[in-house]
């Protein structure tokens, strides 16, 4: 009885293995997200990181983010966001092989505007990289945002004023310029702007299994 039970067990095992051997296991895993779905997702706000939000993370030295600048070499050497790494658009599909790339971090794509970054975003999503976002408005908006922030007009709220002051102040760090921080109103104790999108905390790479 004991023997036959074992024989049944072994046979079931081999049968399960045989099914696996002929199953489309690896193709299932690599199944691509249809481009149409991704295009739809690209319209959502949740894909984009706002300039102020990103600046705050850079100032906080958040270890969980990495910024990939996908513009040309010339543009990158001209100016780039602090801490960003340079991966030209043409090489974006090889990003996983790059030494600079850390898959455990949230990846933020920065281009001149939104279009190129959007294309790169779709490409990376299809490669199976999950934690990837786009800098809203790209570098063009970024520079404008911090070099010449728009002072809130009319009856502005504390929040609006705070944003303005933050941009003024952050500009010195982000653009490397020495701009005088606006001291025209004593609203510095205003609460920081809440971050709109909850972001996963950066996880340390799990240590050895044993």
């Amino acid at each position, binding site marked *: 009885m004991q023997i036959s039970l*074992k024989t049944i*067990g072994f046979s079931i095992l081999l049968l399960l293995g045989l099914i696996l051997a002929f199953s489309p296991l690896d193709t299932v895993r690599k199944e691509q997200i249809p481009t149409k779905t991704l295009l739809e997702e690209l319209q959502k706000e949740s894909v984009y990181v706002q300039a102020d939000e990103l600046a705050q993370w850079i100032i906080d030295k958040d270890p969980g983010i990495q910024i990939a600048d996908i513009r040309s070499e010339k543009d990158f050497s001209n100016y780039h966001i602090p801490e960003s790494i340079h991966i030209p658009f043409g090489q974006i599909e090889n990003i996983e092989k790059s030494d600079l790339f850390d898959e455990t971090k949230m990846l933020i794509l920065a281009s001149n505007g939104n279009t190129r970054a959007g294309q790169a975003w779709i490409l990376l999503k299809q490669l199976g990289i999950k934690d990837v976002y786009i800098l809203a408005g790209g570098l063009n908006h970024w520079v404008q945002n911090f070099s010449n922030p728009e002072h809130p007009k009319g009856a502005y709220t504390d929040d609006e004023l705070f944003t303005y002051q933050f941009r003024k102040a952050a500009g010195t760090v982000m653009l490397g310029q020495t701009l005088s921080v606006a001291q025209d109103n004593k609203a510095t104790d205003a609460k920081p702007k809440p971050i709109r999108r909850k972001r996963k905390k950066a996880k340390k790479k*799990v*240590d*050895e*299994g*044993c």
Partner: protein
Amino acid sequence: MKESKFMSPYLAGIGLGLTMLLAFLIMGRGLGASGAMMRFDVWILNLFAPAHTASNAYFANYAENPLSNWLVFEVLGVMIGGFLSGALAGRLKFVIGKGPRISNRGRLIMAFGGGAIMGIGARLARGCTSGLALTGGATLSLGGWVFMLCVFGGAYATAWFVRKQWI
């Protein structure tokens, strides 16, 4: 209380495998043991010579509160589970496991020496039989399988020299 017989190795293996599978499904990681010991080690060292642990590149990796580590909790669990099973089967007693041809003292010296060698090997390979051979084996890790074969190779090669200890 009379000791009950051991469970069929296949059944125990299935139980172990399902435990590991659940760990993968829930936590995304397998089991382990020696990593927790390392952390415990560094924790003790830290009590006596914190400057020393901080200056050693290897120890510094593990210098954190041991109670903030997954593996440490897992090994605490192993203690609980092992004790419960032993108690249920009436196998709790202070004895020294050995073959009939070796003295108690000899066996304990061998146990300490073997443990020390294993500790070094486990750290070098980044895992032990549970963390690397079992977990790596199930995830089809190349290193896990190579390691497993080498463990059996090393053990079978040594077995003849220490046969007095066991048979």
